[in-house]
């Protein structure tokens, strides 16, 4: 009886193993994409929205200002950049006065952060000229230079891209990842950057990477948490997002990507598995969702391939600026500009919907409008 029982147990055991193996083989043959790691996006959705929350005052509205003569000998003409932003601001707000247009988004007492993208050197970063034009218009609206911060993750790259005190006197220029006295570490071997992160705000995702000693200064921490920088949680009241128009593979790195990947630590782990989710979900957290009041895409120069890295083979002059409060709608318009250029240049044959997934995710989070048919695009040409 005991032997019979043992046999029965063995058969059941073998059966279980067979089912397990068969299931695994089937999984291999059908090879469904692995499930996405879980994130804490539900935490973000618990916070009530306010009047500044994305997509801001003008959902689905994008102004595209083109200027045929905004560059000369490979350099951006400051006055052209100023004029393009002026036209964009007036058209977006319907105002006939530039100061009034700006005051719809900021007040003189606000501490304002300009989120630029300096990661690809002086040739493929948000331009100094466009940023200077924005600073000038903020000043004309009554904002003091001492209330303006230019920021990104990498302080070193800000300086390399021309965001220095010579070009921006009186304006604080700061990065989350920053050295002090020439070193990323303090005398106790701790990263200075740790002082810049706010551990009460984080994007959690069920994936992680180990970073070597050369990488950790650029990631700040390992593990499953990506912490928000204090620049967004404490140091600014309003954010003006100023990305550059460029591709990221067969998608784009514009408003949402510039904000999301520029505001949190430990991003290396997120690139491969959660690129689209990160672009959308990090923006759903209040420090970004409720503070980004305006997006001005510097599309005077950009690239159509090789991005987000800088490969001069693929640099181009789009000679355009996109203005709006809705980061998703702007990304959607910018996406078409870049993809059309890629198709025209022969690096891509046709659009592929995969490149738009991050915008659809953002739309589902009510951060803006990704549906091209629902976006109101105004085009202005300056001769």
């Amino acid at each position, binding site marked *: 009886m005991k032997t019979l029982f043992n046999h029965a147990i063995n058969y059941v055991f073998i059966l279980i193993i067979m089912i397990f193996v068969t299931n695994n083989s089937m999984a291999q043959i059908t*090879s469904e994409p692995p499930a996405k790691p879980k994130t804490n996006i539900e935490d973000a959705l618990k916070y009530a929205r306010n009047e500044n929350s994305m997509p801001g005052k003008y959902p689905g509205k994008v102004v595209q200002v083109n200027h045929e003569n905004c560059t000369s000998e*490979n350099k951006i003409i400051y006055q052209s950049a100023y004029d393009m932003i002026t036209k964009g601001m007036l058209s977006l707000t319907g105002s006939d006065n530039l100061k009034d247009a700006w005051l719809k988004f900021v007040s003189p007492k606000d501490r304002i952060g300009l989120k630029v993208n300096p990661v690809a050197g002086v*040739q493929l970063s948000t331009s100094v000229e466009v940023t200077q034009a924005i600073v000038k218009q903020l000043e004309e609206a009554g904002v003091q230079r001492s209330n303006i911060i230019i920021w990104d993750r990498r302080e070193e790259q800000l300086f390399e891209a021309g965001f220095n005190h010579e070009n921006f006197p009186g304006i604080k220029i700061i990065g989350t990842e920053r050295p002090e006295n020439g070193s990323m570490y303090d005398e106790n071997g701790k990263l200075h950057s740790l002082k810049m992160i706010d551990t009460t705000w984080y994007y959690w995702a069920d994936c992680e990477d180990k970073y070597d000693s*050369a990488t950790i200064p650029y990631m700040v921490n390992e593990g499953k948490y990506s912490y928000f920088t204090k620049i967004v949680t404490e140091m600014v009241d309003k954010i003006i997002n100023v990305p550059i128009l460029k591709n990221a*593979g067969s998608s784009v790195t514009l408003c949402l990507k510039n904000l999301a990947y520029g505001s949190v630590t430990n991003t290396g782990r997120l690139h491969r598995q959660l690129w689209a989710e990160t672009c959308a979900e990090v923006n759903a957290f209040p420090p970004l969702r409720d503070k980004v009041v305006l997006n001005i895409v510097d599309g005077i120069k950009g690239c159509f*391939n090789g991005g*987000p890295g800088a490969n*001069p*083979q693929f640099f181009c002059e789009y000679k355009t600026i996109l203005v709006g409060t809705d980061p998703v709608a702007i990304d959607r318009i910018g996406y078409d500009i870049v993809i059309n250029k890629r198709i025209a240049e022969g690096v891509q044959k046709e659009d592929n919907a995969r490149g738009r997934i991050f915008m659809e995710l953002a739309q589902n989070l009510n951060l803006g409008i990704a549906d091209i048919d629902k976006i109101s695009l105004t085009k202005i040409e300056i001769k």
Partner: protein
Amino acid sequence: MKQIKFALILFIFNGLLFSQEADFPKLLESDIPGSKITREQYFDGSGLWGYINGGADIFLEYGFDKLLLQEVEINGFTFKIEFYKMINQQSAFGIYSVSHYKCDENSLLTKYNCISQFQVQCATGDYYISIINTNGSKEEKELSNEIFNKVVSIIPGGEFAILEIFHNKLFDGSRDQIKYFKGILGVQNGLMEWYDYFENFSNYEIYFLPKKVDDKIVNVAQVKFGSGSDVKQFLSGLGIVMSPSDNYLKSDDKGIARIVKMISDVEMIFIEGNMNMNDLENIAKRFF
């Protein structure tokens, strides 16, 4: 005693690191009269994120070992020289193949190089080299070429050899367009129309070259997968059912004809064209 051992290990480790960097090819000020090296920085492994953020991912996908970044000033012009040491010649060629585009000219110094207004690129040995000038002027371009000549002379190792199939005469004049992929980021950058084919795979290699034959574009690739089950899955995704004895398969789907010739259990020649099967088979005969 333990402290002494630790110090010794640290000393040896640092020594090894230092000697690795000392052996790394680089430009010296004495190589080009009047030049001044203003920046010299090494990035290892995923430390590349520190230099180019998300741009690092594609290098890591191809297999990245170490980067030396040098900035050089010559006659008031600034040049950025990047020595990317990849894990092997294929990887160096691969990153070059998806990074170059329209070349104004090619140098005879190496097999794979591309000279354009702002940049000189090449794959030689295990290295992908990029030399970038600031303004694209005639003088800067000439100086870039001078730097290139010097740099190429100090890189060790031979040239990446292209696969047998691409030696076919039909490819004369277009071999500089061969692309090599070993991951989805590369495919995204250089072969987006095949993204859907490879999205759910890993551990594969693709050598790809499109060719215009009789006024029609034919995509020719040699593809190697990590396993036989990946091969089956790849083919079934294209509507091709494979039995174990098959080594020549074909499908005709919505005006796209495809031919597969297996060259091992995991490797195939894959030919695709926007045409009917008869036309593609006639063309394919010239490749096989």
